[in-house]
């Protein structure tokens, strides 16, 4: 064994790097072990065809918390900022929206949209404070700080004013479909907002709780979307640099086999190649299920806790599509200069819900919905000169496909997706020189996320705040001495936000100070 470390961080995902960086900044001796050969977890840029690179999982930046940027003094270049959204319509009457403004709809819808976004961003701001804090403990032995924190939340909700508070309480558990149908007439607008609320989840727009997931999307930057130069890997590289600058060591290609338990305490880790590292603290950026069921093993923690972890819902439902194109496709009604924007194919809210229906029964959507970007349009480093990359999230593709994921079923869904895109981009098919489809199982394998769910656990009210990932473990410390969770499975959840990593580091340091 090595000389004693203060902390080992399992996984150099963005949260792991944020956590490692903050712990190292506080003078802790930190080692980060990453299974893959590059840092970043699901926020990486990697080649997928000769000369073509893409942000392999997360592909847009909209949730990175300002606090994280500030704390770490992060510096990376943006290839584009404040990207707009173009919701494609089958009849070419596309809807474009950015911030609180929308065009291509009736005037009534435009007014409603302003009001809707204004209210949603206000609620998102309310949540933001709590996203960047350890959630209060509700148990009998809750501390004074916990109770104050909780009281503060109640007070903040009350301070919205009577009408807005009622609206907040009415909406927070509700589905977004009802709200959209009540407000808007325009199909593509309702469809695009439905997609925004359900991206990366096992939820349809009519599932309860999709207002919450929509708010969650707005928390970082009010929904303003940006794209880092060099892809999402650039963010991770900047985080890794920050961690190294603060003195942390990062070793890649080091998959962790198990967390070493000594006398009922996490005492370090053993890697697949048999190396053992002893450490005072072990901080897992892996998802909660992998952390407890694979690395710790159920027998080393108490029953009840393992039951809750076992029952954690983390079924990924989004596939990732990468196309190498020898040129930009034609999209009727869209000018070439607009190809830097984000495109959505979700012509109506019902269309999204119908796409989700199939997923409930373990089938892929017959008519999937898409979030599409052409990152090479704004970033020439990603494709050879004159050529382009398309990166798209395709829903729904359930992790537990009834027919099972195989080369055959993957190819079938890839063909289906390209066919569906062809309805809007007639010349797409002949422009494809290479393609890659990552199913949730592929995402699970490549990024080591149970269920291939990028939130490490469904982002629903029963797995939120005080109960994220599960009750009794929502304050980053796991019920095994010396073990902490710092990834998306912990509060507040997934997305490239860094909040979980930052909160975890702060919780660890605070606990050590108190001890």
């Amino acid at each position, binding site marked *: 064994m090595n000389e004693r470390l203060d902390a080992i961080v399992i996984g150099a995902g963005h949260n792991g790097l944020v956590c490692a960086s903050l712990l190292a900044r506080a003078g802790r001796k930190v080692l980060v072990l990453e299974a893959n050969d590059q840092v970043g977890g699901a926020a990486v840029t990697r080649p997928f065809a000769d000369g073509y690179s893409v942000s392999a999982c997360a592909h847009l930046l909209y949730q990175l918390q300002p606090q994280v940027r500030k704390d770490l003094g992060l510096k990376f270049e943006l290839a584009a900022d404040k990207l707009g959204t173009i919701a494609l319509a089958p009849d070419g009457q596309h809807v474009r929206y950015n911030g609180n403004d929308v065009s291509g709809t009736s005037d009534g819808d435009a007014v409603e949209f302003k009001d809707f976004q204004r209210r949603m961003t206000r609620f998102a701001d309310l949540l933001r404070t709590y996203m960047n804090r350890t959630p209060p403990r509700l148990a009998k032995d809750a501390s004074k700080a916990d109770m104050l924190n909780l009281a503060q939340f109640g007070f903040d909700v009350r301070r919205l004013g009577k009408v807005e508070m009622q609206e907040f309480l009415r909406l927070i558990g509700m589905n977004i479909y009802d709200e959209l149908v009540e407000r808007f007439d325009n199909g593509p607008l309702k469809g695009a907002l439905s997609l925004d609320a359900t991206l990366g989840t096992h939820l349809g727009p009519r599932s309860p709780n999709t207002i919450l997931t929509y708010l969650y999307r707005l928390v970082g930057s009010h929904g303003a979307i940006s794209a880092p130069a060099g892809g999402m890997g650039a963010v991770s590289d900047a985080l890794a640099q920050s961690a190294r600058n603060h003195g942390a060591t990062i070793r890649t290609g080091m998959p962790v086999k198990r967390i070493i338990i000594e006398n009922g305490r996490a005492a370090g880790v053993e890697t697949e190649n048999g190396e053992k590292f002893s450490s005072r603290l072990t901080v897992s950026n892996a998802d909660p299920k992998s952390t407890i*069921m694979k690395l710790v093993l159920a*027998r080393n923690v108490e*029953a009840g806790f393992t*039951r809750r972890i*076992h029952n954690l819902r983390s079924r990924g439902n989004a596939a990732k599509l990468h196309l190498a194109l020898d040129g930009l496709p034609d999209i009727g009604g869209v000018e070439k200069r607009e190809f830097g924007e984000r495109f959505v194919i979700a012509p109506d809210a019902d269309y999204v819900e119908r796409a989700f229906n199939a997923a409930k029964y373990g089938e892929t959507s017959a008519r999937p919905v898409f979030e599409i970007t052409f990152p090479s349009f704004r970033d020439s480093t990603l494709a050879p000169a004159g050529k382009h990359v398309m990166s798209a999230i395709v829903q729904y593709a359930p992790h537990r496909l009834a027919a099972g994921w195989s080369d055959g079923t993957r190819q079938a869904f890839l063909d289906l997706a390209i066919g569906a895109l062809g309805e809007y981009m007639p010349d797409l098919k002949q422009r494809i020189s290479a393609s890659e489809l990552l199913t949730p199982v592929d995402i699970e394998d490549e990024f080591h996320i149970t269920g291939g769910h990028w939130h490490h656990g469904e982002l629903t009210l029963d797995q939120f705040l005080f109960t994220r990932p599960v009750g009794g473990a929502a304050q980053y410390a796991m*019920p095994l001495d010396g073990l902490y969770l710092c990834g998306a499975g912990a509060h507040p959840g997934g997305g490239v936000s860094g909040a979980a990593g930052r909160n975890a580091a702060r919780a660890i340091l605070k606990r050590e100070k108190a001890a």
Partner: protein
Amino acid sequence: MTTIQEVPQGRLKSPFFSRQAELDRLNRWHEWKGYSSADGFYDTALEYFSIRNSTSVFDLTPMTKYRITGPDSLDFIDRLVTRDMRKIRPGRVAYAVWCNEDGKVIDDGTIFHLQEGEYRLCSQERHMAWLRASAIGMDVSIVDETPEIAALAVQGPTSYSVLKDLGLDVIENLKPFGLTNFEFEGVDLMVSRTGFTGDLGYELWLPAEKAEALWDALFAAGKDHGIMAIGTSALEESRIEAGYIAADIDFLPADVTVRPGRSRSPFELGLEWLVDFKKPNFTGRRALAEEKRRGSTWRLVKLDIEGNKPAHHSYIYAKSSGRQKEVGFITSATWSPVCKQNIAIGTVRTPHGRVGDKLYVEIYYQLEMHWSRVMAGATVVDKPFWNPPRRRATPPGPF
């Protein structure tokens, strides 16, 4: 014409039912986990004295029995219960409690280490949901064998002689909490030196299809040793004398309580000796360590009460600064014929109820419709009320 297959409804009958029905003079039965179980067959006092003076036979079949096997069975059981199961070798039986994550007792029971890696867990309540939850992530099989295994408690000073006459030799070497196997009419008959009476006694376990044959052979062997079938009422008196607690009477299983503070930790049930903090992990450990640090709320007490009026469901008081303050309540009470004592098991708030403490029990009793009340003094005692040397003597004597 289509025939509709009959679906069993109502109470289940124990495999000993036919024999018990023949002896039954009272027709007083109650429900025990789906089975009909007799309150008594002749007379509670008569049956009680067969436990203390000769041999009693109690039908244990409704007792929950789980067979636990698989590569992780020891790890599974060791994490389930609070005591160290690594010390329980094959051929031994352990009394144990299991807790939830809050360190509150879900139930107590006996765990039989049948052979290497194979266990039988017996308890009053059913626990499949909890056992399955505890088995997540482990390679272990849990099978409810309650209906397949018939069981009899054969208890009393002459029980050893009865089993000897049944043809079970080498039984004299069987120590308390030991188990051994015999062949009986071509099936395996397991005998353990365990029981709920605090006396010399055994429990017999065998496949249900041989239940009646065993009953007949046992009663034939016991004819000259005063053998008698008993019901729950007589057993209840003897288990209070032995100082054993019963689920649903002296504590509520933690998984059925709703109100906070209504479940009990092992410390609060006088079972601290069962909690082994040397084990690095078991369910409830973190909460129990915390409770040990902070102190418990409740304490289980055995009480020796003045007078002869059983203190059923009475409040318990303590004198504090000259005034009597209510500190707890009685959960089990009886007049003990063999000890000639008015005894009870109760729950009091800490710090009350230390051994030797003087408490007061408020007993209400009715004489010809009119109620009377006494405040009887009560002393907290440490040892079981009834604990004869023959309970542990190996070999046991032929009484």
